[in-house]
């Protein structure tokens, strides 16, 4: 127990005063849940965030009072549903600072956004001798679509390596982006390491050499200000459920000219202009890429989540989460035998660690008994685990509703694991 007492949990600096912790938590009904007689401590927002009441209400309100198919009926209810759906697209446009609504394609999530680009963008532009470059810290969602794509097109998949801190090695990246590189697919914030990648710099380099850039923004959108125009990227994907919105909805941003030139991804209703047995013509973006009835409720829910997030200055969210990240890093670092995995200079609210002699799943089980939800395993980044030489990690990730008390409880529970395993 000496170890527990010695943890530096009493920090000298004071809590940021501009963060209304209790009011924020009250917006998320699930946080009042109890497990094993203990209040839920949810530290797995990088997997999926909890939902504020306003998002839940928006879903219910849509089904309750506006449900109809979009872009079809001439009756009032359908027009109302269409108006809500279109408004949601404008919210996403504004959230990412795209130039126009036509640059925002609704998809099921980041994974589908990446698959769409791999399938549609590359089909006619990438062939034998060409290369796609991804980074060594990508999520499987930004690896496997490119593996399959490269195999199909006869192209080569290159991997930009990282250093032991979990940062891209710039010289290697510089060397690997060549005139053969057709597309660079890179994560904005690593879901395993928390590393924030220098997207603007990567985009400049790639554009100089004629490659387009797709950014996996799934983990960045809840923590950073996203401005696709200032980043200069060609494609950017987000998942609604990681920004306090519903599952099953996400968005792909693509530059208008690229989307115009790309063939459809899926085909069917809504994505067409006219259909006859002789000839079918396609709709303009974004409808060209949205075959079938879309997830109307999901889009409206995502819009509500963006409205919710925008109640807070992005600097306030980042400041609060940074405070939690620093506190957790300090607390965990004081536990002997514990190593933080991912020590980039620039990190978002994700913290991975390994503890000598204890497997991440055993840590996860002990923490769960304390009502503390963390992720254990490879985090869908198996090549990264191989690179780091660990079978998996335990990961804490923070959302705007987390508190210093929760961080302290989690650190204390990890120290208890050590006690239990006598390691």
């Amino acid at each position, binding site marked *: 127990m000496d170890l527990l007492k010695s943890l530096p949990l009493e920090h000298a600096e004071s809590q940021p005063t501009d963060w209304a912790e209790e009011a924020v938590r009250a917006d998320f009904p699930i946080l009042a849940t109890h497990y094993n007689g203990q209040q839920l401590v949810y530290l797995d927002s990088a997997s999926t965030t909890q939902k504020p009441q306003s998002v839940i209400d928006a879903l219910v309100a849509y089904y309750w009072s506006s449900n109809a198919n979009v872009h079809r009926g001439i009756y009032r209810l359908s027009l109302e549903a269409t108006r809500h759906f279109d408004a949601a697209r404008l919210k996403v446009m504004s959230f990412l600072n795209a130039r126009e609504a036509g640059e925002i394609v609704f998809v099921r999530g980041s994974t589908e956004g990446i698959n769409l680009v791999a399938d549609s963008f590359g089909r006619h532009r990438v062939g034998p001798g060409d290369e796609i470059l991804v980074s060594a810290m990508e999520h499987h969602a930004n690896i496997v679509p490119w593996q399959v794509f490269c195999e199909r097109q006869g192209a080569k998949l290159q991997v930009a390596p990282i250093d032991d801190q979990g940062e891209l090695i710039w010289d290697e990246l510089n060397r690997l982006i060549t005139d053969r590189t057709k597309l660079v697919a890179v994560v904005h914030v690593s879901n395993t390491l928390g590393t924030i990648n220098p997207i603007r710099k990567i985009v400049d380099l790639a554009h100089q050499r004629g490659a387009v850039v797709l950014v996996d923004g799934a983990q960045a959108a809840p923590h950073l200000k996203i401005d696709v125009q200032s980043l200069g990227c060609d494609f950017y994907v987000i998942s609604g459920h990681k920004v306090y919105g519903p599952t099953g909805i996400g968005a792909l941003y693509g530059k208008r000219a690229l989307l115009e030139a790309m063939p459809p991804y899926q085909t069917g209703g809504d994505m067409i202009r006219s259909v006859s047995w002789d000839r079918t013509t396609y709709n303009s973006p974004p409808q060209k890429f949205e075959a079938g009835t879309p997830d109307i409720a999901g889009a409206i829910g995502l819009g509500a989540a963006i409205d919710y997030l925008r109640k807070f200055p992005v600097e306030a969210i980042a400041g609060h989460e940074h405070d939690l990240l620093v506190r957790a890093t300090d607390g965990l670092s004081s536990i002997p035998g514990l190593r933080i995995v991912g020590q980039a200079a620039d990190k978002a609210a994700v913290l991975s660690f390994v503890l000598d002699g204890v*497997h991440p*799943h055993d840590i996860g089980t002990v923490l769960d008994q304390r009502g503390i939800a963390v992720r254990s395993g490879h985090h869908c980044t198996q090549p990264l685990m191989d690179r780091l030489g660990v079978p998996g990690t335990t990961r804490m990730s923070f959302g705007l509703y987390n508190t210093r008390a929760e961080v302290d409880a989690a650190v204390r529970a990890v120290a208890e694991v050590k006690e*239990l395993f006598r390691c």
Partner: protein
Amino acid sequence: MLNDELRELYQDVILDHQRCPRNFGALPDATHRAEGFNPLCGDRILLSLEFDGERIRRVMFTGAGCAISTASASLLTDALVGNTLEEAQELSRRFRALVTGQTPSPTDSAKDLPALDKLRPLAGVRQFPVRVKCATLPWHTLESAINGQAEAPVSTE
């Protein structure tokens, strides 16, 4: 403090086998081998068996995994020695019933199976449904080794 379920799950016998796994290594002259894999957590185990006539002479394992799967594999290598194939399969069945919390049938209860007693420290896993697969991974791997399906790793998913 730690609750009873956790204390039962991570009891001394389990932690001892995790820290110092018995029969860790590979048998060069193994007659039966198999690899088990849990894609959910990445746990991997390679099991090799050597026979002396009808009976198992030795079992060894390698691999990497959590405390539960490591201890379960270690206990398995001890428990199987001297068993025939049929006895090993019977033990496997009874073990899986033990860790999934199935009530033993009257015929099972009556049948004495001393080797099962060695495995009882793992019974605590029944309180943790998500961890049952960790305990059964070595036993699934055993079934695969016995049935000669060693070509592809047996998966828990």
